Structure formats: structure tokens, C-alpha cells
């Protein structure tokens, strides 16, 4: 076997491996999306029907309460809860993250490293490990089955991460930019909003997307802390499709699509901010 052949074989091998890996990653997602548009009998057919024969919007229809079939699942309430909880907790986590990240990047204070390490350690604790104490505490405080209860949990899950990420972005911005703005006539506050904030915007956007997705997708804690339409989020709502003996796969998949779409749209909208790189150039090249 000559060298040329070996080279080609290796390239072919790489492509095949890549393809197989991509299939493994993508097929479940595709299958969910596809199943959202297929009737239950086709999903459950044996042998499986690979190429859809019957595409329909019925699954969405029955979730939202029109069409012949109906399921008694308050998807709109869940969607509303998910939105309120994810957006509110993201905004709070971002505000704390910006303040904290700025403080860690700019100020010297006592026990700074210990604080930072503490935040990172907190991040290392799996949320579910805290579910029992949180449950007991929340039940005493009357926060079980409230939006506020979940918002607090998600803020505390996200804050270490947002601080860490935003701190890194502020660190990249030279101190002299804020100083120049202050000599130019700004208060420190103005210097922050007019100079440092716009430059750290991509980092803050990235932190926001991650925080939103964490809250939006979280299932384990939400399933413990929510009970009813007052606070149940979409991922928890998915469980409504499982009855004692049957699972409505089609409805579940349709709802999964409803969960996925806003997350995709959001990521798409802010993706240009995710590409950092504005910072450099104002200082020495």
C-alpha cells in the first residue's frame, strides 16, 4: 500500500467517523421534531416507519386546545411561567453578575480570592444535591409552587457563572479607558455605562444566554418545587403527557418543540454579540 492510498484511507476514515458522530448527536433531536408532526400510531409503529407518511399539525392543535382531539394540559400557563421565571432570573443574575464581575475585575478588597473560590465551589455543587434542604426551607417560607421560589433558586444557580464570565470580560478592558473617560469629564458611573459596558456587552450577552438557557431547561429542581399551573414550567409540564399506562409521545414531542424554539431563537438573535473582539484596538496595537 503506498503513501497516497494510506492518506486517502485515513481521510475517508475521518469522514465516516465524523458522520457517525454527527448522526448520533443529531438524530434524537431530529426524531423529536419529526415526531411532533406525526400521529401517535406512526411513532409507535412496528417495524418503525423511518420516512414520515402522514405529516400533521394535530399534535400542536390538541395542545393549544383546538381541533378534534384535546388534551387537558395548560401549555400556555406553563409557557408563561417558564418565560417569567427564566427572564426574571436571568435579568437578576445579570445585574448581580455585572456588579460582582466589575468588582472582582476592578477593585481590591479583603478575601477577594477566597470569595471567588467560594463562588466557583458553589458552582461545583450539583443543584439536585441541594434539592432536599431547599424543599424544606421553601416549604417553611411558603415558596413552594411559586414563581418567586424558582426565580430565587435559578438566580443562585446562575450568579456564580455570570460573575465569573463577566469578570473575565471586564478584565480585558484596560483600566485606562475608564480613567480616560473620568479625566474627560465622566463620573465613574458614566464611565461604566458609556465605555466599559458597551465593550463588555458581548460577554454580558453570552452570560445572559447561558443563564436563560439554564433556567429555561432546568427540570430536576423545578419538578420538586412546583405543583400547579401557578409555577409549573415547560420541562416539568412535559411529564403531564405520561399517564399511568400510556405516554402521549406525539403530544410530548410537540411540546418539546415548543420548548426548543424560543431557546433557538434567542441564541440566534444574540449570536453576533457572542463573538467578542471589539475590545482590542483602542489600546496599543
Amino acid at each position, binding site marked *: 500500500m503506498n503513501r497516497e492510498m494510506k492518506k486517502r484511507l485515513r481521510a475517508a476514515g475521518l469522514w465516516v467517523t465524523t458522520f457517525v458522530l454527527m448522526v448520533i448527536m443529531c438524530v434524537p433531536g431530529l426524531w423529536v421534531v419529526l415526531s411532533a408532526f406525526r400521529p401517535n400510531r406512526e411513532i409507535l409503529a412496528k417495524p418503525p416507519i423511518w420516512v414520515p407518511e402522514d405529516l400533521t399539525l394535530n399534535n400542536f392543535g390538541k395542545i393549544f386546545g383546538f381541533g378534534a382531539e384535546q388534551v387537558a394540559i395548560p401549555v400556555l400557563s406553563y409557557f408563561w411561567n417558564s418565560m417569567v421565571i427564566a427572564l426574571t432570573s436571568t435579568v437578576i443574575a445579570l445585574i448581580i453578575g455585572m456588579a460582582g464581575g466589575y468588582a472582582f475585575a476592578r477593585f481590591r478588597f479583603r478575601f477577594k480570592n477566597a470569595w471567588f473560590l467560594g463562588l466557583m465551589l458553589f458552582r461545583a455543587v450539583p443543584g439536585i444535591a441541594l434539592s432536599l434542604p431547599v424543599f424544606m426551607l421553601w416549604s417553611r417560607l411558603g415558596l413552594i409552587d411559586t414563581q418567586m421560589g424558582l426565580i430565587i433558586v435559578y438566580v443562585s444557580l446562575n450568579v456564580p457563572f455570570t460573575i465569573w464570565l463577566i469578570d473575565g470580560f471586564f478584565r480585558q478592558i484596560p483600566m485606562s479607558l475608564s*480613567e480616560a473617560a473620568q*479625566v474627560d469629564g465622566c463620573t465613574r458611573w458614566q464611565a461604566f455605562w458609556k465605555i466599559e459596558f458597551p465593550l463588555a456587552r458581548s460577554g454580558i450577552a453570552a452570560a445572559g444566554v447561558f443563564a436563560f438557557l439554564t433556567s429555561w431547561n432546568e427540570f430536576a429542581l423545578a419538578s420538586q418545587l412546583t405543583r400547579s399551573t401557578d409555577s409549573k414550567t415547560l420541562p416539568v409540564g412535559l411529564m403531564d403527557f405520561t399517564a399511568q399506562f400510556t405516554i402521549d409521545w406525539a403530544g410530548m414531542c410537540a411540546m418539546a418543540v415548543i420548548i426548543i424554539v424560543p431557546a433557538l431563537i434567542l441564541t440566534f438573535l444574540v449570536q453576533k454579540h457572542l463573538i467578542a473582539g471589539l475590545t482590542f484596538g483602542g489600546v496599543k496595537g
Partner: protein
Amino acid sequence: MAGISLQNVVKNYGRLEVVHGINLEIDHNEFVVLVGPSGCGKSTTLRMIAGLEDISDGDISIGDRVVNDLPPRKRNVSMVFQNYALYPHMNVRENLGFGLKIAGQSKEAVEQRVQEAADILGLSELLERIPAELSGGQRQRVAMGRAIVRHPEAFLFDEPLSNLDAKLRVQMRTEIKKLHNKVRTTVVYVTHDQVEAMTLADRIVVMKDGYIEQVGTPMEVFNHPVNTFVASFIGSPPMNLIPATITSGQVEFRDATKIPVPSRLAGSVSDGQEVIFGIRPDDLTPIGHGIHEARETTDIDLTVDLAELLGTETLLYTTFVGQEVQGKMFDPRDVTPGETLTFRLSLDKAHIFDAASGQSVRRH
């Protein structure tokens, strides 16, 4: 426009004192350069004038206002930073106009002032570019433009040329000097480069370890350094400093070589005094290759270890009393290492410092 006054200004970080009660009066429209090795407190002093660092004790006044507790924005100074600190997300026009806009000036006024500054600095073609699209020299000019556009009471420069390559540095140095001639304003300029200090300053302030060593015009500092630190820091190549003892009205080196005490200093030294004899390379030249006629000279034979050709002059490295001593040969001829030449030493340009204190024995 106004002068700046520093009275007993102290800066400490916790228990560490980095500036020890310095006093300095800077006149209206004067160009003052703070120069010294890194860590001498010159940048800290500048930042205290700008208000970017608190002062721990003493008073700073700009004009007739004591500004100790005023934030930077209320001091009406502008500053050029070492890394230029241009706002990366604004174009040149916005960078220049930022301070005026913050001050609430009308759009037309901002536009007019920006245009005026751009004309002075030759930036008119670049107004729509962002900093990342500018070369080092252009960024430097924008930084200066941002400083002049506000017509401040003083300009503060913090090592503005140290990020430029050697050629551009010389060019921008000239531009800064020209700019100061055009826009007469009080300037405080920090650098570690004694050539910048010599060329730009009306007055030089030499600092070391948080103290002011000497204040004077460039020629005063060059011709009459008050101590060995200033003597070795100002001037390139540095002054030769050779330990010696005064014996019966002569300077006696460790190898028993004797030369006369310069007559102007004869009354300032006493027999038995341990001294350091200072002579600049320019004043230690092979006979016939000097640059000026000295009135008072003495000759010594030295063997050349190394010759560095600089074109109009050659630097000669020799060994004298066990230490390296540099001389200069103007209008040079070829010199081979190992060659022994008779050097003429211009005594009227020589310096004598007290060995114990390092201070010049010359009475001030």
C-alpha cells in the same frame, strides 16, 4: 490656564510610602518633565495631579484652586495615556468629541472644536475611522487631539511615546514640542527616557525612590548635577564616576594617578576627603579629537579596549583604576583595540561629589 503647585505631597499604599512629601511649583504654560527610573513615583505623582490617585497628605493646587478632593472630571486637565486609551467602539470624531459631549456642549460647538483639533494634528482624513484601523502614530495623535480639544488648564502626559518604535518616537517627540508651541498650555510630562526629558522640557524634575533629586532647566541639570544619581541618569552615555581621595590639592585615584583639582572646585574640597570624580565621555577625548577648547586640561594615557563607531564620533571604552571608563573621539580615525592613546580631560567640565553623601561639592 494656570500653574500647578504640589506642597508636601505624600502617597502611601497601606504602610508602603511611595512618594515622600514632594514640593514642586509648575508655572503657567511651562513644560515640565518628570523623569526617573521605573518605580520612582513619577507616574503616581502625575496620577495624583489628574485625580486618579488620592493623595495621602499635602496639597495639590491647579491655578488657585486646591484640588485635593476633587474628582478627575472637576480638575479641568486632560491626559494622554501610555496605551493611548482610545475608546475602541467610537470613531476618531466621537473619541475627540466625547469630553465635550459629556460636558453638554451643543452639537455645532463640538463639531467645530473637533474640526479645529483635527486640523492642528492632521487628523481630518481619519475622522470616520475607529482606533483599530489606525497606525501607532495616528493613535498617538488622536490621543493628543482628545487632550487639546477641551482647552484644559493643563495637559498630563504619561509616557506617551514608550509604545512607539524608535523612529516614530523621535518624530512624535518633535510633534509634541510643536504642539506645545502652538497650543501654549501647562504641561506635565512623565518619561523614563532622559533624551525626551532633555529635548522637551522647559524644566526637568529628576525623581528617584519617591523623592525629587533635582529640579532645573535641561542645561542646569546636565551641567550641574547635584548628586551622582542625577549625574549618571542624565546624559548618554552616562558620566564616568571614579572614586578618589583629595591629597594635597590633587585628586588621587586608587592606582596613585594624580590629577589637579579643577580650579573652580578647589575651595570646595578638603585634604583627605573621599570623593567621586565625574567626567562625561564628551570631556574625555584623545588629543586633537575634542569638541571644544577647554581652558583647563590634564592628559592621561589610556588603552582602548573597544571602539564603537557612531559615524560623527567614536565611543572609546577603556579601563581606568579597574573600572570601565568611556571617552569619545570626535572627527574619528580608525582605532584598534589595544591601542594606547593620550586622552585630554577637560577639567573645567569635571565634577566632584562627596563619596559619603553622593552630593556635588559645588556650592549652590
